[in-house]
């Protein structure tokens, strides 16, 4: 999951959109959760 940590908030949001994962703004309190969602999607 670490390789998502290097992405900026905007880049992470772009991946969420690409994978059609429902999401709100990528901010401090939501970033970890979205990284996990992307990891789950990819695995």
């Amino acid at each position, binding site marked *: 999951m670490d390789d998502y940590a290097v992405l900026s908030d905007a880049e992470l949001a772009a991946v969420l959109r690409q994978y059609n994962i429902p999401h709100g*703004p990528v901010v401090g*309190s939501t970033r970890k959760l979205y990284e996990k*969602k992307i990891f789950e999607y990819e695995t």
Partner: protein
Amino acid sequence: TSQKHQDFVAEPMGESLAGIGEVLGKKLEERGFDKAYVVLGQFLVLKKDEDLFQGVAKGHIGANAKQSWD
């Protein structure tokens, strides 16, 4: 919506969270959710998406399905 609902919604949410007891309350506090409105804020930032919000509740404090639902 019923008058009861309107009355409930109109009143300030105060500092208590339904369904969260001493133990989970402590865990929430440790993670910065030391006020009920911070938990509300997290729900709103997640666009009121219950799955996402339950993911946070379970991830952060190990709440079970019922507790995170509450």
